[in-house]
C-alpha cells in the first residue's frame, strides 16, 4: 500500500517560488494501476519525480507499507517520456540495466529476459542500439526493462504519447497483457482520456497549476478489463470527459 498525504512541491523559478503540487493525497493498493490526468504544466511529472525519489524536497509524506518511500529500499521502475534508454548501450544491455544496478545479471535474469524479448517481438534486435530502433520498439525495450526488474512500484510518464495511434494501442495492449500476469502497482501520467480509462483502475484528475487532486474516479470495472470496442469503455470515456471538463473549469 502506497499512501501520499498532503504532498506539496515548490520549485524556485525566476519569478520566485512556484507551487507545482499542493495538498495531494492519494492511496494506491499493491497491484493497482492509477492513471493521473491533468492539463499540461499541472505538476503530473513532478508527482512522478517525487515518487521516484528524484525530487527530495517536498512537504507532506509519501509512505509505502508505513515506511517512507525511497529508491534504496523499494524497487522502483521509471519509464520517462523518451523511454529512458541509454544510446550507448545495446538493446540487451539497456533491458538489463534495471537489474544490474548494484549487482551482476544472473542466469535467471538472462533467461527471463530472453523470454520477454520473445514475447515483445524484440528477439533478434539484442545487439542493436536504441538509435536504430523505431519509437515503438524503443518503448518495448523500456517495457522489457521494467518487467524484468519486477518493481514494487512502476512509474510511467506519458509512456505512449509519442507513438502513432496504431502502435500506441498495440503497446497499451502489451502493457495490459503483462500487467495482468504480474500486477505491479503502477502510476501512469497521461493527458489522454482513452489511455487513462483503458489502463487505469483508479483515475486521478488533477487541476491546473498548482496541481491539486480534483477528483478520484473508481475505474475498476473498466480499466485493464474491457476491450476498446465495449460499450462500457465508450460510456466510461464519455463520463470521465465530463468530469474532467467540470474539474478543469475555473
Amino acid at each position: 500500500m502506497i499512501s501520499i498525504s498532503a504532498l506539496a512541491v515548490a520549485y524556485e523559478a525566476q519569478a520566485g517560488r512556484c507551487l507545482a503540487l499542493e495538498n495531494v493525497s492519494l492511496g494506491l493498493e499493491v497491484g493497482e494501476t492509477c492513471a493521473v490526468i491533468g492539463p499540461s504544466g499541472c505538476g503530473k511529472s513532478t508527482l512522478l519525480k517525487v515518487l521516484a525519489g528524484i525530487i527530495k524536497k517536498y512537504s507532506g509524506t509519501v509512505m509505502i507499507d508505513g515506511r517512507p518511500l525511497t529508491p534504496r529500499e523499494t524497487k522502483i521502475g521509471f519509464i520517462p517520456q523518451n523511454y529512458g534508454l541509454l544510446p550507448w548501450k545495446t538493446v540487451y544491455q539497456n533491458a538489463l540495466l534495471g537489474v544490474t544496478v548494484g549487482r551482476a545479471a544472473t542466469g535467471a535474469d538472462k533467461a527471463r529476459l530472453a523470454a520477454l524479448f520473445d514475447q515483445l517481438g524484440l528477439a533478434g534486435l539484442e545487439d542493436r542500439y536504441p538509435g536504430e530502433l523505431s519509437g515503438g520498439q524503443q518503448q518495448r525495450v523500456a517495457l522489457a526493462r521494467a518487467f524484468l526488474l519486477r518493481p514494487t512500484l512502476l512509474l510511467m510518464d506519458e509512456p505512449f504519447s509519442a507513438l502513432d495511434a496504431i502502435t500506441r494501442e498495440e503497446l497499451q495492449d502489451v502493457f495490459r497483457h503483462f500487467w495482468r500476469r504480474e500486477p505491479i502497482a503502477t502510476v501512469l501520467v497521461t493527458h489522454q482520456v482513452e489511455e487513462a480509462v483503458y489502463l487505469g483502475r483508479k483515475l486521478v484528475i488533477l487541476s491546473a497549476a498548482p496541481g491539486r487532486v480534483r477528483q478520484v474516479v473508481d475505474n475498476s470495472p473498466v480499466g485493464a478489463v474491457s476491450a476498446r470496442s465495449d460499450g462500457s469503455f465508450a460510456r466510461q470515456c464519455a463520463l470521465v470527459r465530463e468530469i474532467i471538463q467540470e474539474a478543469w473549469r475555473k
Partner: protein
Amino acid sequence: MSENRPKAWYLYGAVALLVLWQGASVFADLPIVPRPLAVLDNLGRIFGDKIALHSLFSLGRIVAGAVGAMAVGIPVGLGMGYFPRLDRALSPLVYLTYPIPKIALLPVVMLLAGLGETAKIIMIALIIVFQVIIAVRDGVKSIPGEMYYPLYSLGAGFGAVLREILIPASTPRILSAMRIAMATAVSVLFFTETFGTEYGMGYFIMDAWLRVNYLEMYAGIVVLSVLGLILFAAIDWLERRLCRWQSV
C-alpha cells in the same frame, strides 16, 4: 561515404601534397626547397639508423602528455559538469588560464621542472588539458535530465551514474578534444625539443638545419607530419571502437 575507405583518402592526400611540393620545388629552384623524391629517397636511407629513435622519443612525449592531460582533465571536467557548485568555483579559473598561450609558460615550467623530460611532457599536457576539461564539462551538461531518472529511481549511487552515463556520454567529446588539441600539441612538442635534449624530431630537424642538410631537415618534417597522421588515425580508431553507438 568517404568514411568507408579512409585508406584511399589518406593516399589521395599524400599524393596531392607531393604534387604541390614538386611544383613549388621546380618553381623556386633553390636548395632550401628540395625535390620530394630526393627527400623521400634520403628518408628511406636514414630512417632506420637516425630518425626512428628520434620519432619514438617524440611519440612517447606526446602520448605521456596526452595521458597526463586526460588523467587530470577527465575527472575535473566530469566533476564540473555534474556538480554545478564545482563548476561555479572552477569555471573562472579555467577561463582565466585557458587563453594564456601555453608557450608563454615555458620559462616557468622549465624553472620548476627542469630542462628534461618532465618539462616537455608538462607543456604538452597543459595544451591538451583545458580542451579536455571544457569538452567533458559541456558534454556532461548537455545530457538531458531524463536520462538519469531510471537510474536515480533505482537508487543508483554516483559510481553507477559515472559508469553507466557520465563516462560513455563524454567519451566522444574527449576524443574530439584530443583531435583538436593534437595539432597544437605537436607544434609545442617541436618547440620544447629544440633545447635540453638530443632526441626528438624537434632536435633532429633543427640540427639538420644548422648543418645545412636540407634533405635531412625535410625528411624530419615528413616524419613529423606522418607522426601527426598516426596520432589522428589512432584517435579515429579509438572512436570507432568506443563509440560504435554514435555511427548508427
